[in-house]
């Protein structure tokens, strides 16, 4: 399932290393900076940077070309008649602005799905971490097992199930499975044990606060760093989701941008103008994400470090 956390990317590191948590200004070899080494190291870093940038650069160049130029001019340089705006206008206006709708859908699935998933994971993780009750071990085991089940195993039966209650091919069919983040539960469980002070909980209880109130007022705040991590992971997981919408959705107006662009990609063989649509669409969908990644980098590293430190 989509929501199965990071399949390819590992869970945020939390084992071992760095229990001390003293994030020192750690660069070793601070003693002297040898110019020759600096040049060598920086050169290596630049070469690697080129590798990471080439596809993005290519799509930027390609998005300015006509379909003919795409095949006849040098792929790494602009053609004589750039037409970026024409192409982008085509992307956003094709089929009544379908592409914008896909983008909006992606934001909807990822935004709403991730927020709710984080809340559910926080509540469940807190329950598993802070209460001792019969069956908690079993539940934790089953939830963790869910991480390992391949998406295809659940997608088809889920589709049949949803079809019977008339949910397939609706927003719900993608949203509901996106609400599950077994990995989030796991992280929240660990984090609540580490970060929610027992004494404060006890004190609140003596003051007559209900359990749900304690969770909402005290625990959620204490768990905030872990919640940010879960939120980011789940957002990316849903945003990247492909198989689930592929199976669930027949109506292209419900597609997320990933599925929409592969649909366009699938038409280039017969209709070459779809090269322009696909390439322009890729550019448009990549740019906001790249900006977001840069802006949120601090949180990413924060989350990862927190995960490592607190676990």
């Amino acid at each position: 399932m989509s929501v199965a956390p990071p399949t390819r990317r590992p869970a945020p590191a939390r084992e071992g290393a760095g229990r001390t948590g003293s994030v020192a200004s750690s660069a070793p070899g601070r003693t002297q900076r040898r110019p020759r080494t600096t040049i060598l190291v920086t050169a290596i870093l630049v070469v690697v940077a080129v590798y990471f940038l080439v596809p993005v650069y290519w799509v930027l160049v390609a998005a300015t070309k006509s379909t003919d130029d795409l095949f006849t001019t040098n792929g790494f340089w602009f053609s004589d008649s750039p037409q970026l705006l024409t192409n982008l206008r085509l992307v956003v206006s094709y089929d009544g602005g379908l592409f914008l709708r896909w983008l909006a859908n992606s934001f909807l699935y990822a935004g709403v799905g991730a927020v709710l998933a984080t809340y559910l994971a926080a509540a469940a993780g807190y329950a598993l971490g802070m209460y001792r009750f019969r069956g908690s071990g079993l539940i934790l085991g089953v939830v963790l097992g869910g991480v390992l089940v391949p998406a295809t195993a659940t997608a088809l039966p889920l589709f049949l199930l949803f079809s019977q209650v008339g949910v397939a091919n609706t927003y719900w069919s993608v949203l509901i499975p996106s609400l599950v983040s077994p990995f989030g539960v796991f992280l929240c469980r660990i984090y609540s044990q580490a970060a929610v002070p027992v004494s404060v909980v006890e004190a609140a209880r003596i003051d007559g606060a209900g359990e749900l109130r304690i969770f909402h007022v005290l625990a959620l705040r204490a768990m905030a760093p872990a919640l940010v991590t879960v939120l980011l992971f789940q957002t990316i997981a849903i945003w990247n989701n492909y198989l689930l919408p592929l199976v669930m959705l027949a109506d292209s107006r419900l597609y997320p941008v990933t599925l929409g662009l592969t649909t366009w990609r699938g038409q280039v063989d017969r209709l070459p103008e779809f090269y322009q649509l696909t390439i322009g669409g890729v550019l448009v969908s990549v740019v906001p994400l790249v900006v977001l990644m840069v802006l949120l980098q601090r949180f990413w590293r924060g989350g990862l470090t927190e995960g490592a430190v607190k676990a």
Partner: protein
Amino acid sequence: MTTLSRRSLLRGGVLGAAGLTGLTGCGTVGTAPTSSGTIPPAASGEVVRLQYWAWLKDLQQVCDVWNAQRPDVQVEAVWIPGGNVGGYQKLFAAIAAGSGPDLAQVEMRNVPSFLLQGGLVDVSQYGFDEVAPRYDRALVEQVSFLDAAWAVPQDSGPMATFYRPDLLEEVGAGPPATWAEWLDVARAVHEADPDRWLESFPIDDASVFIAYASQAGAVWFTPEDDRWLVRMTDDATLAVARHFDTAVSEGVVNTSLAPYEPGWFAAVGDGRIAALTSGSWGDALLQGASGASGLFRVAPMPVWSDIPGSYGSSYLGGSTLALMAGSEHPHEALEFATWMTTSPEGIDAMIEHSGIGWSPATGYIGAAREEGSEFFGGQTYGAEVFAPAAQEQNLDWTWPPIAQQVMDGLSDRFRGVVGGGTTMVDAIAAMEGDVVEIFREKGLSAEVAS
């Protein structure tokens, strides 16, 4: 968007659980075709809305021609990915879910598979037999099983050879009339320029090989009583396999660029591919190759002069308009389907907007097809080449309900031919046994014909 209460969610859970215990409930997707009475036409005054899933471009414009005339039956076209690259997955899923469109584009060869899944309406019940004479006989044969017709022919793909006279002249050749000549020309072209080939042979798409075998007179699948007889290693098939084994092992056909893939178009644009033997629908696609305008001509495909009982042409591809079992308006759907595929205005609209393949109707190939095309240097190849080709078909060929698996399995084995690990002859012999096994795994009975 449907709203969903927690209660209906729970009900879903209960239903799912019920399916679990029963294991036959919602899970058994492959149900038999049923003839549970016909659905009457809609009452007059009611506006019928039909959905039509297909991968033809601009199909809505064709539907709109109809919609303008028939306010009581409005057809909406929904684009799906082409057949096996995503469209069928969606259709099968919809059948399993008991939902989906009224009409769908289903290739000829996949009609039996949809029949096996219980996804089709018996169109004979709704009067197809009366209009059947308007279609090419070979096509009606291909959609008829169990004494009924199960889909409306939409377009077909009689085969011919698109070629570049200029490139062939360089080696002193014209379009090859026989497959033996074809091999000689292929050798000459590749020898003269190692970066040029006469043709690509799509190693990952066995449907082309099957079309050649069918041209040679092979009939791989024959229904007999309640079982399927499989005959894939007849003389005709093996002769065809040996022929292409030779071409591939000598490297005189290109096996890495499959026709109509981006790399192939680029090669055509560069003049590295001199010819393409393909279905009639290839004419529209070929025009996607940049800089190729005016360079191509069309000739009849090569024939198997030394195989007795072989035919002048074959079919590659070709689609039907299938009425899906979930449709609530089969009468109106068939009406529309018949209009689109047999009326001159329907056929012309399909050619103009969707660049569709060969008209399935006898006697009308479409106004545009009567004229010459600039891309092909003004040649009136429609009447000249394809119209006769449509009449030189192997009428005995029958597709099985496992066509896709046969083609996938064969393609997988053919991929090994490129590396030199096996030959097409061996691949087919091995596949024959597999095919019987695939039938049995579907719960059907089959055996190799003796």
